[in-house]
């Protein structure tokens, strides 16, 4: 079918159309008022005209055009299809058929006679008009004198894309005419939430460097000329365009380029041409060397970093200010997002970004590498090892790891205690070591490493490990557990953190300085850190401290319980799950099934004694401290919150489950939950349950 000659298809089609036309004309004689017949005849004529012209039957086209024009009056109901008219129309039809099927047999004179007859019936009141030719596009006005280029400004109606026109395609077509310099004009682009994604907002300024006709340009925009504003002006000053890609960044108009380049040249030339602004006049106040060195050969700091010593209090103050700024910014953001003023929203976003980067910079300024602290312990290990006659190798890694300077200071005492413990209780004496096939020299590793928003500090010895049995016996002796209670090793080791708990058989001269493991634990928890022990009998003990990067501002998860809002430090949050109806039913048991693992959970509503009806869909936030996971059930999870920590007053020092407070964007306060305390609370509940179930 596709190989068929379209002309042949037209002949076949035309003969069918003639039958349609003849049938319609004859029927019209019977039913002159049948619109359907008129339309069908008219459509047949129209197709013959259009297709005839397509396939080179020019005479058919021009004759049919006349026929159609005349018949149009019938279609419009201006004249009735009389029998006489129908007879002429049938004759006209026969003439067209002859024109197609056997053109030799026809004569133009016959055709004109038929048309004259037709017009007499159709336009009875006017003389036959000279036959009009098939309307052609009006001859174009002689094109303007050829320009060396054009300056175009294109502005499309906004709906242009929807109707299938693509301005970019048009620009591409324009570029085919010659080298183009295209600049999009973006001032019509609205704000994002006013933007209609299917609309065209861009306008274009185009310099076309081609000596083409205006017609060629009009041709490009032929289909959209009524949907756009095209401002066309000849390019004034035209120089031969340098060979350039279609879209060139550089305007070849020399003047602005020179203007643009000039200041750059000046700047570049400055060190040579302009005498140095800073004369080398050493003043007594010149403490730091951030000023440019006048002489390049002068000795420079290799690292290119100038250091300024700043009093620590100033950094603290700075951090406080930043904290207040973050709170004020949260209020601004809240205010802006509740209103509809877009410019305020934009400013609020900008300030949010700035505050966040200022916070990071300020925190960075307070960061000190932990190596400065590690250095102190070298001497400690050396002295202890000599006093106890235990040769010890001391290895430190991760000295570059940075921590808030306040935290470094707070870490010193706990670390002294841990290292002392490791040598005193951990590392065995030389005789025991060699009896167990170990090297005589013990080994203590002090390491720091970044892990997400936390820093892990580990003290690891390769000594004998914790004596679980002895710890248990001591705990029983002190009445901390009932004899025969079932406890895991890990649970037993937690007694080491109990106040007044010591298993050392002899009090060494080095211990007993008022810092026990319970104090270590409390210090670490005050820094919102956690402490964890792991041990392998005969191989050693590892104490792991997990510390937040900073004390002042944390990433928090804001939740709602009843009317109150609370913050959970994000670093402790593992995941959030919905409390299913099944979990809900297991009241009293308070265990949650998280992918096959049983996790105890606490209902914050009960702990906070919240009033009002609970939310229908309760959420559970799974928090963890090292190995222990606990679920906290809240009414709503609001989202992330930059939390500036304000400590609670002395009045609240006996409050255990909160580690501090913060101020929210709307000015209200939210309490920060103490993760370690909540985990301990949950565990004690679990233990009570165990006991009550056992009983």
């Amino acid at each position, binding site marked *: 079918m*596709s190989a*068929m000659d*379209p*002309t042949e*298809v*037209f002949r*076949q*089609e*035309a003969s069918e159309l003639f039958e349609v036309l003849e049938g319609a004309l004859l029927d019209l004689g019977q039913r002159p008022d049948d619109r359907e017949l008129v339309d*069908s005849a008219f*459509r047949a004529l*129209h*197709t013959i*005209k*259009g*297709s005839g*012209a*397509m*396939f080179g039957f020019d005479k058919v*086209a021009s004759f049919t055009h006349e026929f159609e024009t005349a018949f149009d009056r019938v279609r419009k109901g201006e004249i009735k299809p009389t029998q006489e008219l129908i007879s002429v129309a049938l004759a006209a039809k026969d003439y067209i058929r002859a024109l197609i099927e056997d053109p030799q047999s026809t004569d133009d004179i016959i055709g004109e006679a038929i048309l004259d007859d037709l017009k007499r019936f159709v336009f009875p009141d006017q003389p036959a008009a000279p036959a009009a030719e098939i*309307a*052609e*596009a009006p001859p174009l006005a002689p094109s303007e004198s050829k320009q060396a280029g054009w300056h175009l400004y294109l502005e499309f109606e906004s709906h242009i*894309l*929807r*109707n*299938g*026109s*693509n301005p970019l*395609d048009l620009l*591409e*077509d324009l570029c085919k005419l010659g080298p183009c310099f295209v600049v999009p004009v973006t001032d019509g682009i609205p704000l994002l939430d006013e933007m209609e994604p*299917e609309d065209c907002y861009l306008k274009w300024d185009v310099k076309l460097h081609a000596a083409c006709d205006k017609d060629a340009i009009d041709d490009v925009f*032929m*289909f959209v000329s*009524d*949907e756009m504003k095209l401002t066309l002006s000849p390019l004034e000053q035209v120089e031969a365009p340098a060979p350039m890609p279609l879209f060139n960044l550089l305007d070849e108009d020399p003047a602005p380029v020179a203007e643009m380049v000039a200041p750059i040249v000046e700047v570049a030339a400055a060190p040579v041409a302009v005498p140095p602004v800073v004369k080398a006049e050493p003043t007594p106040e010149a403490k730091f060397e951030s000023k440019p060195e006048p002489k390049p050969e002068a000795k420079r700091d290799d690292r290119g970093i100038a250091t300024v010593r700043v009093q620590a209090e100033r950094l603290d103050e700075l951090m406080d200010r930043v904290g207040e700024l973050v709170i004020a910014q949260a209020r601004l953001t809240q205010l802006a997002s509740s209103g509809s003023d877009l410019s305020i929203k934009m400013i609020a976003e900008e300030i949010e970004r700035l505050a966040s980067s200022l916070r990071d910079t300020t925190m960075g300024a307070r960061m000190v590498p932990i190596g400065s602290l590690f250095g102190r312990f070298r001497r400690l290990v050396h002295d202890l090892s000599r006093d106890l006659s235990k040769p010890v190798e001391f290895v430190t890694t991760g000295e570059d790891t940075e921590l808030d300077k306040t935290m470094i200071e707070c870490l010193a005492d706990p670390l002294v205690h841990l290292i002392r413990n490791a040598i005193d209780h951990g590392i065995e004496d030389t005789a025991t070591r060699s009896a167990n096939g170990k090297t005589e020299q013990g080994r203590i590793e002090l390491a720091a490493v970044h892990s997400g928003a936390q820093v892990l500090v580990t003290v690891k010895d390769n000594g004998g490990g914790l004596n679980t049995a002895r710890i248990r016996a001591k705990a029983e002796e002190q009445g901390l557990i009932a004899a025969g209670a079932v406890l895991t090793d890990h649970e037993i080791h937690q007694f080491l953190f109990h106040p007044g708990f010591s298993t050392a058989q002899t009090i060494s001269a080095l211990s007993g300085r008022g810092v026990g493991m319970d104090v270590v634990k409390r210090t670490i928890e005050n820094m919102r850190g956690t402490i964890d022990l792991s041990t392998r009998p005969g191989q050693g003990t590892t104490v792991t401290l997990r510390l937040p990067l900073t004390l002042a501002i944390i990433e928090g998860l804001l939740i709602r319980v009843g009317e109150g809002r609370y913050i959970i430090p994000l670093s402790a949050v593992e995941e959030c799950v919905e409390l299913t109806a099944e979990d809900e039913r297991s009241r009293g048991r308070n265990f949650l099934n998280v992918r096959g693992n049983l996790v105890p959970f606490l209902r914050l509503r009960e702990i906070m004694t919240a009033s009002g009806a609970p939310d229908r869909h309760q959420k559970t936030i799974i928090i963890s401290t090292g190995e222990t996971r606990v679920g906290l059930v809240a009414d709503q999870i609001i989202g992330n919150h930059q939390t500036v920590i304000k400590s609670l007053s002395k009045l609240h020092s006996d409050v255990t489950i909160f580690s501090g407070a913060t101020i929210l964007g709307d000015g209200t306060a939210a309490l920060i939950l103490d993760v370690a305390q909540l985990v301990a609370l949950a565990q004690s509940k679990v233990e009570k349950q165990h006991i009550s179930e056992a009983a």
Partner: protein
Amino acid sequence: MATILTVDDSPSIRQMIKVVLEPAGHSVIEAGDGAQGLAKAQAGKLDLVITDLNMPVMNGLELIRALRKLPSAVGMPIVFLTTESNDTVKQEAKSAGATGWITKPFKPEQLLAVVGKLVRA
């Protein structure tokens, strides 16, 4: 390359469009009136529609308006064929949602030029 629907009650016009566009690498689908055309457009993604205006059952203008209501035809170019060079018809078709037009009679090169203007590789 592109899938083009030609809607015309004249098989010869459809044939002509087919023999010009198929060698140029396009695949041409045919429909004999507006209603058929609309059904074809609903059945699959098209890159271009070339439609006559004067057709039985559903004429070209009705087809263009119906096509523009299809979510799949947003931004799809629609070209109409017209024998008139008067602007009234063009205005009417354009406000119905047409992208461009081809004036009958047209030569194969003219058809290819218009298709090339509206369909990009």
